[in-house]
């Protein structure tokens, strides 16, 4: 399978002024490495508000101007610089946004799906495609003329998905596609995303809902305190023994069906010298407090931990 997206050692930080005096660099994403292949769904799982969305923004080149970015993003083997991002976004790489707030409140949804057109002819052509895709997701013609605020939750979901598909992209980035939806809509959304995979498209799914990630993705990356600490195949998440990182184990054990065991403590906000999970880790050593582990490969998975071997041997 062809590699679609490769993100290597991506870090994003913001310069802020605290109390008018002190410049403060706050790191949101640190040393993130991930890849997405054709016909594959990769989920990034992290708590809400932890800055996962910025990965999506970074790939699309829509980060705010005060963001400092290091690292490399490649698309189909080509380095994605700002020019290429601007050329590809909306065409080869598309975003499925979080909520209806991402639509212009004063524009009819069909027009937004069609987007900017150079002339009447292009508009007419795109209108045909738009109708076709809307129809595919069961949105009849009356929906075309609605304003975003008139859409129901499930309908909004489908409109957002259709909008992303108009350009016939190869890579889709779904940013929290299931917030506050009812069970039925969540199931539908999961089906829709899986369906995209059948059509050969790669999907990067950004979510904080473990269930959605487990049901949808082929591989899951665990995002903790700005770091990706583990990337593993979805099958391995069925059992806490098969995942590698102590946090992932704790996370799986916390799922209701595995007995409700919650991890203690919160994710550290400030930069720490050692492993971000050190404070809450059950198997941490002195080294973990002083030194940051790198993301390394282990039997097809990626893991960022010094002690995972010992821990897993003991288990």
């Amino acid at each position, binding site marked *: 399978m062809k590699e679609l997206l490769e993100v290597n050692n991506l870090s994003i930080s913001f310069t802020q*002024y*605290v*109390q*008018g*005096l002190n410049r403060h660099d706050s790191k949101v994403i640190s040393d993130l490495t991930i890849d997405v292949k054709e016909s594959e769904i990769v989920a990034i799982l992290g708590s809400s508000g932890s800055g996962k969305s910025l990965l999506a923004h970074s790939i699309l080149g829509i980060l705010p101007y005060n963001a400092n970015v290091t690292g490399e993003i490649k698309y189909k083997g080509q380095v994605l610089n700002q020019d290429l991002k601007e050329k590809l976004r909306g065409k080869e790489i598309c975003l499925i946004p979080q909520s209806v707030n991402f639509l212009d409140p004063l524009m009819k949804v069909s027009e937004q799906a069609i987007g900017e057109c150079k002339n009447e002819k292009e508009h007419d052509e795109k209108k045909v495609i738009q109708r076709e895709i809307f129809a595919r997701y069961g949105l009849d013609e009356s929906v075309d003329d609605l304003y975003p605020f008139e859409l129901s939750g499930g309908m909004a979901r489908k409109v957002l998905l259709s909008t992303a598909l108009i350009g016939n992209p190869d890579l889709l980035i779904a940013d929290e596609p299931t917030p506050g939806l009812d069970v039925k809509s969540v199931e539908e959304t999961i089906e829709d995303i899986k369906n995209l995979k059948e059509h050969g498209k790669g999907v990067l799914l950004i979510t904080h809902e473990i269930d959605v990630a487990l049901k949808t993705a082929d591989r899951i990356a665990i995002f903790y305190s700005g770091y990706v600490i583990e990337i593993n195949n979805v099958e391995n998440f069925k059992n806490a023994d098969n995942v590698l990182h102590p946090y992932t184990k704790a996370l799986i054990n916390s799922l209701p069906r595995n007995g409700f065991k919650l991890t203690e403590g919160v994710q550290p906000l400030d930069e720490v010298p050692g492993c971000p999970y050190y404070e809450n880790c059950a198997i941490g050593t002195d080294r973990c407090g002083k030194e940051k582990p790198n993301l390394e490969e282990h039997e097809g998975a990626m893991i960022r931990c010094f002690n995972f071997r010992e821990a897993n041997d003991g288990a």
Partner: protein
Amino acid sequence: MSETPWYNRGLFSSLNLRQKTLLTICLTASVLLIIFICGTLINANLPTDFTIKMQPPSFEHPFGTDWMGRDMLIRTIKGLSLSIIIGIGASIISSIIAIILAFIASMNSKCDEFVSWLIDLFASIPHILLIMMISISLGKGAFGVIMAVAFSHWVNLTRVLRAEVLQINTSEYVALSKRFGKSRFWIAKEHILPLVLSQIFVGTLLVFPHAIMHESSVTFLGFGLSPHEPAIGIILSESMTYLAMGAWWLAFFPGVALLIVVLLFDIIGDNLKRLYDPSEANK
């Protein structure tokens, strides 16, 4: 509004916002104070010297001279200090009106409706016209103008205070005070006033530039200070007569000076607002 305005840039960029703001306030305030003190020290009856009448700006008379040979720079400074006095008077009185009305509005819903209606009423007559009317009814002159400007500029501050007081009045601790049987006046004095003090202060300062501008406007139209007063409005309306003769300096320099004074007050008010507004403090 994350960015700093142009006057906070450049030379002082190494300082933080709070320091910069304070520095700007001090600088502008001292400029205004100097103008004010110079103005009060100048004798209102300037020497007239018809041998040097209508002279364009020179080193001797940077702003030129008028039809009676009076130095325009001195007249302008005198006029500005008069404007500042009227501005101070008018903005303080308008703030007092605003405080009283906001207090009345906080009494009960009927009073609140009445105050809202009063705000609508005053906002529905063009400002200049309202000032003209009040000034006429009080017999023009300095008193008339101060009152006129005061009675037409309380609206904004009253709106702000009313909203603020409404919010404080619904808070827990005010409810608690009421249950303890404290009087309305006591609550207003102890709880509300300290919290809205900064709003009042900033509000008063923000009225100031408008007060000065409107004072000069009505005086220019002939409804303000009498032609014997050395006011900027008078100077400018006088200059109209000589405009066709090409005596541009009579109108230009006093106007620019007025503009600068108004701008300085705007800057002070703006900076204070930024300093007090917690939502902007972080930026």
